[in-house]
């Protein structure tokens, strides 16, 4: 029987973080987290409540080691280290430690390599229909992703969209959704059931808080989905909802730019991404009102008939 974080006493989480490490599994990745920073244990207990804790036996072979410890000579600051001392991040205020730790967990995947194609994007699903939301930091991608997840869509990922190089299916880690600034209050007010970790104020990306992913999404994280739609998302305050198809060539370039390891994968990355674009309807989505954007995604989903890719232009590959 797999134990989850919410089955551990808070003191146990704290002791593990300060001792042998808290070993977690998040989809295809496993982490051993260590930290002596105050508030991290409580933050993890809140935001990772439904995630499986690895047994000592399984924890012997985790993928990534991440530590966030206070500086001995300046305890109000902390240092993030990945893979022992292989990667160090700049020193941060200890009171934004959880956000730092989260970014460190992402950095593991970006920096230490992974054999599947990884995009900076959110993945949500309804039934067997995978939807990719692509956008830069501040594009409103995570806000939309959080709202969809709390509206009953299955959250696969907020930050790391994983595309199998073997069969093109989408997967994710179902880790907490990172919300910033006004999005935090927007989601909090809109969804009474939303559970957040502590607020990390005034980070380099603004005020940040992590939304606990729905338990069902965490439990079903290993269920992969075929990609069906790609939205290039852009939030603009006050903007009216606008959507239009994006030609596949441009979509492919945009997706390649949003990938962390497309270049590393070479020909395999190209073929994997081309197959994704083949199978998906690709659109730009500009929104200024969350309700409008959510309605559009629901409408697109209900309006999708036939097999994925039937609206796509005929494509052929050579070489």
């Amino acid at each position, binding site marked *: 029987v797999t134990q989850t974080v919410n089955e551990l006493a808070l003191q146990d989480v704290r002791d593990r973080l300060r001792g042998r490490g808290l070993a977690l599994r998040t989809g295809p990745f496993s982490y051993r987290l260590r930290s002596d920073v105050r508030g991290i244990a409580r933050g993890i207990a809140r935001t990772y409540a439904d995630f499986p804790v690895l047994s000592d036996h399984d924890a012997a072979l985790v993928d990534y080691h991440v530590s966030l410890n206070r500086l001995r000579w300046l305890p109000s600051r902390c240092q993030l280290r990945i893979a022992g001392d292989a990667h160090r991040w700049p020193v941060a205020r200890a009171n934004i430690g959880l956000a730092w730790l989260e970014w460190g967990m992402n950095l593991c995947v970006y920096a230490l390599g992974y054999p599947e194609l990884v995009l900076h994007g959110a993945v949500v699903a309804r039934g067997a229909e995978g939807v990719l939301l692509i956008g830069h930091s501040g594009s409103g991608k995570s806000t939309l992703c959080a709202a969809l997840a709390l509206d009953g869509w299955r959250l696969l990922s907020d930050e790391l969209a994983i595309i199998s190089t073997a069969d093109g299916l989408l997967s994710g880690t179902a880790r907490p959704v990172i919300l910033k600034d006004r999005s935090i209050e927007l989601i909090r007010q809109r969804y009474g059931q939303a559970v957040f970790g502590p607020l990390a104020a005034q980070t380099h990306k603004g005020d940040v808080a992590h939304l606990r992913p729905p338990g069902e999404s965490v439990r079903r994280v290993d269920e992969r989905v075929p990609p069906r739609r790609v939205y290039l998302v852009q939030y603009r305050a006050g903007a009216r909802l606008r959507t239009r198809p994006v030609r596949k060539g441009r979509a492919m370039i945009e997706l390649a730019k949003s990938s962390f390891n497309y270049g590393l994968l070479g020909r395999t990355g190209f073929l994997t991404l081309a197959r994704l674009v083949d199978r998906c309807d690709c659109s730009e989505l500009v929104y200024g009102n969350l309700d409008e954007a959510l309605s559009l995604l629901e409408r697109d989903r209900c309006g999708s008939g036939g097999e994925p890719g039937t609206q*796509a232009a005929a494509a052929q590959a050579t070489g």
Partner: protein
Amino acid sequence: VWRHWDAEHIVFNGKSGDTHLLDDVSAATLRLLDRAMEPNELSSALATELDVTVDQELRDYVDRAVHHLYALGLIERA
């Protein structure tokens, strides 16, 4: 490696690892340059492929396209 969607052509350069989005004419130029050609020969072949007549405008366009493809590392000097 190529991928074609209507008038859009994506080509992956295995040597540089770069991916490029090409229009119809550049893609046709690149395809024709699969074998070495003189500029006039290339213009004629392209005119045939695109069903247009060879004129100075086409020659200039081909010249620019060849320089562009060279700058991208998609073709090399023979």
